[in-house]
């Protein structure tokens, strides 16, 4: 039973981690939380559905193409929702993101309809571990693929020239522009990477939880909780925070209350804010502030 819960908690946790990572990248780049991040998850899932079920492409290829297309969606999102307001107050950008979230949600409903849809699983079937714990292979696939993507993103940010450009822009846009970094391109890349990360989560979750146009709201809220727990602005914090949220949800549901799963997450959030307001990995952002 505990193993079953562990696998379920980790797999949903890594997806929250992916969404949270995407949110953190945008937060670091432009200093504002993207409240439409959950909709990237939904939109990525629907693009994967289009490629897999409507154009009959294999699921692996559909996932890759859908996440690349999400990169383009991220750039369009940046150009329409953030860039025109880049010199405005943060609250204007937040409202703009909320508006974009409605556009994405209702746009998806107009394009794909209200009937929930699904895509093929990356791996079918399940296995029984430790006698009675049934683990679906799709959960394992989510964990493995998400871990690989997180590792690749870490390498991209820390070890590549493009990553350094993105980090430099995130630290100080003005200084970055003075040393010749094309700021718009760098921010565009950050939004693209953020949408890519979150979008692939949508395609991975779709066969388990199905797609509908409002699925992003709850996932986005949990990812936000993950960021606060992990530490604002920290990529590692986003991953660890996502895992904590996933595990609290799974074990809290089984051992404390299924009705109050969400409440348990927010109780944890309040506790973190009371005793470690900067989050687990939140030191850096405090120094920056």
């Amino acid at each position, binding site marked *: 039973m505990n193993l079953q819960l562990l696998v379920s908690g980790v797999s949903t946790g890594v997806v929250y981690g992916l969404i949270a990572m995407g949110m953190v990248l945008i937060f670091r780049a432009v200093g504002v939380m993207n409240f439409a991040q959950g909709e990237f998850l939904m939109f990525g899932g629907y693009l994967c559905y289009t490629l897999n079920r409507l154009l009959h492409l294999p699921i692996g290829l559909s996932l890759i193409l859908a996440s690349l297309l999400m990169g383009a969606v991220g750039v369009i999102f940046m150009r329409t929702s953030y860039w025109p307001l880049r010199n405005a107050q943060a609250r204007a950008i937040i409202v703009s993101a909320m508006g974009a979230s409605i556009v994405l949600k209702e746009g998806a409903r107009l394009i794909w309809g209200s009937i*929930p849809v699904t895509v093929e699983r990356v791996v079918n079937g399940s296995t029984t571990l430790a006698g009675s714990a049934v683990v*679906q292979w799709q959960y394992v696939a989510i964990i493995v693929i998400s871990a690989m993507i997180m590792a690749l993103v870490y390498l991209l940010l820390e070890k590549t020239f493009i990553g350094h450009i993105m980090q430099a822009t995130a630290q100080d846009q003005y200084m970055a522009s003075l040393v010749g970094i094309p700021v718009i391109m760098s921010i565009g890349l950050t939004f693209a990477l953020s949408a890519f990360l979150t979008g692939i989560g949508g395609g991975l*979750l779709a066969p388990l939880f*199905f797609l509908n146009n409002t699925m992003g709201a*709850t996932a986005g809220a949990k990812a936000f909780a993950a960021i606060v727990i992990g530490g604002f602005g920290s990529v590692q914090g986003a991953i660890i925070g996502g895992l904590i949220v996933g595990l609290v*949800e799974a074990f809290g*549901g089984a051992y404390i209350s299924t009705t109050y799963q969400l409440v348990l997450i927010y109780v944890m959030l309040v506790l973190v804010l009371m005793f470690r307001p900067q989050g687990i990995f939140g030191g850096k952002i405090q120094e920056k502030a």
Partner: protein
Amino acid sequence: MKRILAILLIVCMAFGMTACGQPAATSGEKTAPASGAESAAKPIKIGLTTVLTGDRSLEGEYASNGIKIIQQEINDAGGVLGRPIEIVIQDALGTDVGAVNAYRKLADDSEIVAIIGSDSSNDNMAVSPAALELKIPTTAQGSSPKLRDMCNNDNPWLFQLRACDETLCASLMRYAVETGGYKKFAIIHDTETSSADQARLFTEGLAKYGIEPVVVVPFTTGTKDFTSHITQIQKAGVDAIIGACFQAEAAILIQQIRALGMTDIPIFGSNAFADPVTIRLAGDAVNGVYCASAWVPTTPNPKGAALAKKYKELFNEDCGKAAAQVYDHVSIIVEAIKRAGTTDRAAVRDAMNTIDNYEGAVTRYDLRTNGDCGRGGLLVKVENQVAVVLDQITSEKIIKK
């Protein structure tokens, strides 16, 4: 350059004049003889509040499609009182506040004769005071016993055109205990009002046999991962699972119950468990699920079967409950207008109370009292991803003199 612009302008003007002239000629042909009778041909308006956006927008999609079918059928047959009907739709947003706002927007139009409420008892109860205040005949798609009592006792303008959940839930529990022989049940349900209400009715249905559910597992709307919920059910060691929730959650729940090793356990569910959307999403896992449903597209009712066929032809989807319900609601309102011989709201309301044996697509209707007007439902089992009707559920209307 100027010359090109001038030519373009002339072409545009010529095109514009031609375009303007075309409909004038056409409309002149149609309206000229009817100019005196123009007001007589003015459509009779009926309002519909349904959920077009947000979490429950599937309902709005079904309802809008159902409306297209019934509106065309009635108008092709000559309309009512010699006038066509027109359905005006407002978005209820899937919330009770949204439902009231949508209702009041429709009520502002004095030409609207009656209003059809959304497929939620909560929404229907929320609009009840407005219906009473504004005196507009209003039909409710919700099936809760509380709504039934409100319609019967508190609001003569509100009609519950649906079989009450009490009948359906009790019937399903009777089947599970008497025919299935099951004794140990787990109940898993959404905490939103109608599902929680259905879970309560399932519990009451079991209580008639002296059975208490071994475990009751509630979950909040939007839950996607049921591992912890199902783990609790596995620990309880039950013979059967009873579920109450909407379509998407029902499909995920069924899939996860099967995926976590409970491959043969019988599942008894609320309306949504045999819905076409649930069946399509859950795939093979849905086979063996039992449900007491108001509507399935495989209904033996001839009118319902014809509607299901037409819906499939037109929209290439199986007909959902909300489509069939609004189809019947419009038919009944039109029947009441016909009986009243006028579009006066009070006369239509009185005429509605005279309808007592009306065969609809979903079921037979008896409107002599306002609550529990749908007289039955269907006991179904899903086999090979098709909802097979095992029995028709009927109940006698209780009319207090």
